[in-house]
């Protein structure tokens, strides 16, 4: 190559030399083809290579599940998401720490479920468990002692309570009883007592369990003593509990810091008197030391022996000084080991009264001339009226005793003082025959019975 200071002596020749040098230096720029681009071959100046214009371009796309490739190459390939995705039902899929918002599950399968009737429940925070199906007729029951907090139990239905008048709703015989030592009267319907010291048993209307109207109150007598109150379950009902687990519960309050107890007992005799029969304790008795005005639950459990024919629950007060009280409400005996919410044996007050009247019923008249018994009597002579009538419900057995006060026979013209009224021959559980004695009535007139003075009553007992 000539320099600017060279003497141009042969311009064509010099120009050829110049041209050849340029051609040599730019040789790599020659060649190539349409669409190719230059690429540096080495780091040497002017060292190039023509290459295809595909650097950084997408040359192809492989479609996965749910994707369709419309144009697989660049510069802008085209893909689309299939709207009808074919689910992979055979390959296990794991979602970890994913939140599904409002998922719609069609025929989901949950691995916890093992068998027909299994119920999924929570056993702890964020933890699922199953409860296997119970026996036919059983219901789910909340039970904090159960592994999962819920379990199956039968008899969660009306009639589960084997104690009649457990709510102390029915007091046909009166509302307050001065009970002598070694006496065993019935007090609230179906509830009797037997103690070595005198006490008072009465209907409590102020301090009662929530939702209840009444409770039974024992008030200590002159001699400091503990007192017992019983209810016997007749054999026809008790036999259903033989060889089964039962639980008895009762609510208790009264004078503070006194401990009361509840015991389940059985007898191998049929229908013994609840107070005076021969009874044997069974299972675990319950106790509670009470606070005045606050009801505590006393619970006793037992498995009733297969030989049992009768059952009673025994409520024993702590030692009461004169005037101290023990108040009890909502007594219940049921199958199982967990005491459930109280319900009446007869479901409604009408049902409960009917259950009580199977053992005892009383017609009362508060005022003179109040009616006690309708015109169901007649006297074949002037002295011996006979009354034949049906009790309000069929009694347990033919009645065995009459309670009465201030009664007279009436024939709509005259009242005749009844000097005695006794059970007649031929009594049955559903037809009762009473024989009275009067001094001089008119023979063959229909006779009723009314009150000859205030506070009259006629009671028929078929109690245990």
């Amino acid at each position, binding site marked *: 190559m000539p320099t600017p200071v060279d003497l141009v002596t042969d311009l064509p020749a010099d120009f050829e030399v110049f041209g050849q040098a340029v051609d040599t230096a730019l040789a790599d720029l020659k060649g190539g083809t349409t669409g190719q681009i230059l690429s540096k071959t080495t780091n040497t100046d002017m060292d190039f290579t023509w290459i295809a214009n595909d650097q950084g371009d997408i040359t192809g796309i492989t479609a996965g599940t749910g994707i369709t490739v419309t144009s697989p190459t660049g510069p802008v390939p085209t893909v689309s998401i299939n709207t009808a995705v074919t689910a992979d039902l055979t390959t296990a899929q794991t979602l970890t720490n994913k939140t599904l918002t409002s998922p719609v599950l069609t025929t989901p399968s949950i691995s916890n479920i093992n068998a027909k009737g299994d119920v999924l429940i929570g056993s702890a925070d964020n933890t699922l468990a199953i409860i296997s199906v119970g026996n036919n007729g059983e219901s789910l029951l909340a039970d904090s002692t159960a592994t999962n907090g819920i379990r199956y139990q039968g008899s969660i239905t009306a009639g589960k309570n084997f104690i009649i008048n457990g709510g102390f709703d029915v007091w046909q015989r009166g509302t307050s009883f001065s009970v002598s030592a070694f006496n065993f009267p019935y007090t609230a319907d179906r509830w009797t007592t*037997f103690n*070595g010291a005198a006490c008072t048993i009465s209907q409590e209307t102020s301090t009662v369990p929530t939702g209840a109207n009444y409770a039974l109150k024992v008030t200590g007598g002159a001699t400091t003593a503990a007192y017992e109150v019983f209810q016997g379950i007749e054999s026809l009902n008790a036999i259903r509990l033989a060889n089964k687990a039962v639980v008895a519960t009762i609510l208790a309050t009264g004078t503070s810091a006194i401990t009361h107890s509840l015991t389940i007992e059985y007898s191998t005799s049929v229908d013994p008197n609840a107070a005076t029969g021969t009874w044997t304790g069974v299972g675990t008795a319950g106790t509670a030391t009470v606070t005045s005005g606050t009801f505590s639950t006393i619970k006793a459990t037992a498995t009733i022996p297969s030989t049992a024919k009768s059952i009673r629950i025994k409520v024993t007060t702590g030692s009461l000084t004169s005037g101290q009280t023990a108040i009890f409400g909502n007594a219940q005996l049921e199958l199982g080991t967990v005491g459930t919410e109280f319900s009446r044996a007869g479901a409604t007050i009408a049902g409960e009264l009917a259950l009580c009247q199977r053992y005892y019923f009383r017609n009362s008249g508060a005022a003179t001339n109040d009616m006690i018994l309708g015109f169901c009597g007649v006297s074949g002579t002037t002295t*011996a009226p006979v009354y034949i009538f049906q009790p309000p419900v069929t009694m347990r057995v033919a009645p065995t005793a009459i309670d009465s*006060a201030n009664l007279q026979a009436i024939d709509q013209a005259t009242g005749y003082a009844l000097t005695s*009224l006794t059970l007649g*021959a031929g009594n049955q559980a559903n037809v009762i025959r009473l*024989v009275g004695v009067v001094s001089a009535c008119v023979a063959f007139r229909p006779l009723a019975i009314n009150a000859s003075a205030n506070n009259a009553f006629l009671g028929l007992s078929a109690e245990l």
Partner: protein
Amino acid sequence: MDNVSFIKVTQPMTGEILEHAIIDRGNGEFTSMLKSTYEAQQAEQSKSMISADE
């Protein structure tokens, strides 16, 4: 205090005689029952009193 007396009642029509215990409760109230029932109750009560004293 209970006062117990016994009476015999002839049943109209049949002439059968039933013996009853009449318990006077002392407040105008009476309880009556067959004498046999009364005696059975007394026997049960006696047993329980002995048991309670033991």
